[in-house]
């Protein structure tokens, strides 16, 4: 098919940049995404990068989406092919009728191209070399030059890009003007030598609104600042390191005493994840709000301490920015694969609270809420993010905070309460919610001290190996977990227009793709009610949703449908009624994938109506 009509689309297409990592392309590519936002057109960018610092292939994908679909779409309409290593695969990945943008300085044989796409050559190296002599400048400005050329090809307003450059290099006039110059070098060359614009165009709109452009990790870290975290201990691991780094940056801005310059926080880079969680447990035991951020392998290392937190009832907040496992797995690829590992982390009978934010705004809210929950429930709270939310800029509703909010420090017995003669039993349930009172070390000269241990003990924290004493405590922990059900964020349900016996459950970063897929499925005639789970333990509305539907799809990004397993296990329901829809190749799940998987299954159900076959 040599004469495939070029794709024509306004504000709805995917541009993918293929680069070599370490070449400085990231900032130019991010500027491209931001420039489109400044046109009032939503974008959803994604970094696809290797576990490497320099020399390996990396991609940056920008989905331009007037409709505001923030999930990955799949497919590429324009490939900016700047990496010879991945050329063949990159060219093959372009949609028929799509566009290939490349550096035409060196001629390439025709076999290197396709005849069903539009090939756009710009002699980037030639332009760069004739303008700059310094090798580093050549490399960096080449990125800005292609940005300029793209602005012409996609009909973007160069003033908006100049404005961004102005903001980025504010106060660095020399850099500012040289970047603007490079931008116009590329833009002018394209305008003079190429047909501009192409079929893909950016047109000014007003669909961005007051939304902000932020990475989930930065939002979660800010949530920790707002939530009152004062101690952070961490060990570097992709994709979570930027949580601690963002926490450091936010604290530098917001947490220094203006008079003395002293820090109202302490951040320690631990020697490993065991030390990190140990520091968190020690600080929380002593009454500070503390957290760590990690990813799968770190969770594995922390599990002994997580069991201690559960059994000795010490608050802790762990942000798990999930990546593909097992073992080292794919450190720079996204998955939702630690659901089971976190829900039941550690030896013995344990259960933990998990929070599943869908985007940066929820990452902020849930991170702050995690500290209230940890102190209220005196246990570990997992904030389950993933690389897709954590390390990509996402268009998100603005972050909100209610200034009247006080922290919920949970059940803490003070010196005054002890002096009033209140009975203090560290593991004594006084009001039926399963949560005992605790005291901070140093509270009272003669009352309220206790010995914390991971071994079994009675309601007054006295060592005991009595079976009945042990079982009594374990039962109370179950009661406490039931209490948690009503404290954690509830699931959100959205029903189809017409009543339906089919439902779908999803969570976390699957959200935008799922929302988009619902529209696609409706177009195919499939009606589905949706339930977005936002926390574990599951609220009773999850059981109701399951009861109200014959079949429920559970969409998730792991191989073994872990959330489905958890639902089956915790709700004791027939697994046949829960249909797994899994995506686990390390790329973010797409609406196309979900719509196809569910649509095909639905079509199949229509061909052989199960109810009729059974009756």
């Amino acid at each position, binding site marked *: 098919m040599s004469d495939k009509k070029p794709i024509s689309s306004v504000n709805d297409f995917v541009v993918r940049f293929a680069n070599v990592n370490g070449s400085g392309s990231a900032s130019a590519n991010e500027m491209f995404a931001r420039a489109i*936002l400044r046109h009032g057109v939503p974008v959803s960018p994604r970094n696809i990068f290797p576990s490497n610092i320099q020399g390996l292939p990396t991609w940056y994908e920008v989905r331009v989406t007037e409709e505001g679909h923030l999930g990955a779409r799949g497919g590429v309409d324009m490939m900016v092919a700047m990496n010879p290593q991945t050329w063949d695969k990159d060219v093959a990945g372009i949609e028929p009728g799509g566009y290939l943008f490349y550096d035409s300085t060196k001629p390439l044989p025709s076999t290197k191209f396709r005849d069903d796409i539009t090939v756009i050559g710009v002699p980037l190296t030639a332009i760069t070399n004739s303008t700059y002599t310094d090798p580093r400048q050549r490399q960096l400005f080449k990125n800005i030059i292609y940005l300029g050329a793209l602005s012409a090809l996609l009909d973007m307003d160069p003033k908006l890009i100049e404005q961004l450059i102005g903001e980025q290099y504010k106060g660095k006039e020399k850099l500012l003007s040289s970047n603007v110059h490079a931008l116009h070098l590329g833009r002018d060359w394209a305008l003079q030598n190429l047909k501009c614009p192409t079929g893909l165009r950016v047109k000014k709109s007003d669909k*961005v609104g*007051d*939304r*902000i*452009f932020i990475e989930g990790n930065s939002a979660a870290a800010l949530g920790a*600042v*707002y939530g*009152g975290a*004062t*101690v952070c*201990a961490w060990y570097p691991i992709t994709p979570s390191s930027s949580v601690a780094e963002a926490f450091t940056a936010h604290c530098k801005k*917001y*947490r220094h005493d203006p008079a*003395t*310059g*002293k*820090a*109202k*926080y*302490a951040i*320690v880079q631990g020697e490993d994840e*065991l*030390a*990190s*969680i*140990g*520091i*968190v*447990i*020690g*600080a*929380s*035991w*002593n*009454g*500070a709000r503390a957290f760590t951020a990690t990813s799968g392998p770190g969770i594995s290392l922390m599990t002994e*301490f997580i069991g*201690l937190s559960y059994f000795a009832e010490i608050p802790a907040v762990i942000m798990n920015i999930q990546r593909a496992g097992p073992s080292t797995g794919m450190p720079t690829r996204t998955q939702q694969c630690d659901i089971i590992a976190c829900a039941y982390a550690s030896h013995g009978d344990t259960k933990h609270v998990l929070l599943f934010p869908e985007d940066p705004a929820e990452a902020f809210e849930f991170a702050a809420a995690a500290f209230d929950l940890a102190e209220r429930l005196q246990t570990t709270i997992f904030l389950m993010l993933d690389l897709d939310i954590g390390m990509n800029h996402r268009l998100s509703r*603005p*972050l*909100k*905070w209610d*200034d009247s*909010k006080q*922290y919920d420090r949970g059940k803490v017995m003070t010196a005054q309460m002890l002096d009033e003669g209140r009975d203090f039993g560290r593991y004594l349930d006084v009001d039926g919610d399963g949560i005992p009172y605790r005291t*901070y*070390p*140093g*509270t*009272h*000269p003669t009352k309220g*001290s*206790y*010995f*914390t*241990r*991971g071994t079994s003990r009675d309601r007054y924290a*006295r*060592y005991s190996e009595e079976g009945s004493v042990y079982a009594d405590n374990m039962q109370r922990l179950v009661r406490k977990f039931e209490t948690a059900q009503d404290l954690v964020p509830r699931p959100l349900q959205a029903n189809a227009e017409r009543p339906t016996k089919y439902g779908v459950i999803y969570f976390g970063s699957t959200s935008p793709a799922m929302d988009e897929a619902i529209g696609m499925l409706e177009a195919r005639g499939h009606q589905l009610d949706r339930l977005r789970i936002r926390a574990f333990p599951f609220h009773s509305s999850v059981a109701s949703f399951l009861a109200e539907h014959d079949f429920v799809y559970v969409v998730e990004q792991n191989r073994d449908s872990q959330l489905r397993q958890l639902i089956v296990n915790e709700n004791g329901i027939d697994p046949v009624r829960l249909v797994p829809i899994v995506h686990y190749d390390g790329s973010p799940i797409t609406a196309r994938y979900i719509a196809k998987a569910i649509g095909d299954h639905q079509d199949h159900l229509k061909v052989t109506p199960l109810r009729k076959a059974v009756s």
Partner: protein
Amino acid sequence: MTYIAKPKFHHPGLKKNELGYTHRDYEGKISTLCAGCGHDSITASIIEACYELSIEPHRVAKISGIGCSSKTPDYFLGNSHGFNSVHGRMPSVLTGANLANRDLIYLGVSGDGDSASIGFGQFAHSIRRGVNMTYIVENNGVYGLTKGQFSATADRGSKSKKGVTNTDNAIDLVAIALQLGATFVARSFSGDKAQLVPLIAAAIGHKGASFIDVISPCIAFNNHAGSTKSFDYVREHNDAVNRLDVLVGRDPIAVDYAPGTVQVVEQHDGSKIALRKIDADYDPHDRLGAQTFLARHAAKGQIVTGLLYVDPDADDLHTHLNTVETPLNTLEADTLCPGSAALDKFNASLR
């Protein structure tokens, strides 16, 4: 058994310290360790040191790992909060606790399995960071609770109770602590309370990472001929470099020193350490000298004890992190939360 309450009555004429507490106020539950265990002597020394320093018992946080040694915090300072945490992880738990509230006294109790094997890394890194703590290793060279396996501090060539010869090299925690920058390093012997009590008292007064390695014979599994951690062996090979007196407050312990034999070190908390020299050439302010001295004596099979190194001007992790003077665990939303106005500005910067 620890659930049997210790009788609270005591002699009415029992001496009281500056705060009006008796010795009994610093005790804990009845020990469940073997009769004659060296660890119980260390417990007694900790009680003695805290009594003499007139510390308010509840202002101490006792943190330990797992093992015989780590059970002992239940046996002293019954009005203090204690935390028998995870094997080898006392240092990280203590570090976190210390960050949360800089105003308490942190006593870390560990053993040789806990600190030289499973927790060797955490031992090292807490020392490196200069956490303000007194880190005591009750060092008996064996795993007691699991019945007599060698630990990493067992000397090469020493024999186990079952007659097995240890072929692995020993880790000397004192040498490591010196190398890692501990600002108070001492070694003592559980059988020498006169030496140990003032060492513990001085370590508590020290601001920074204080480390004391206390050789503490295991009566059940490591007190036989062929052991280098037995009472007899340690007594025969103990080479003390100095003796200490800790002078606290208005009523210093009266001592009569011969001129030229005493070195007085003033600590951050105002207390003074009077160091009575035994080895005239030994200088406890010389880190490199201490390392060499230790290595030379170890080669001769001698166990060097005493205050081996002290830096009276040391600082701690809080100083390095520039944290506020107010304990972090007392800060609330009004000082910690930047509020909605700041958030609006933050949002605006991301558009």
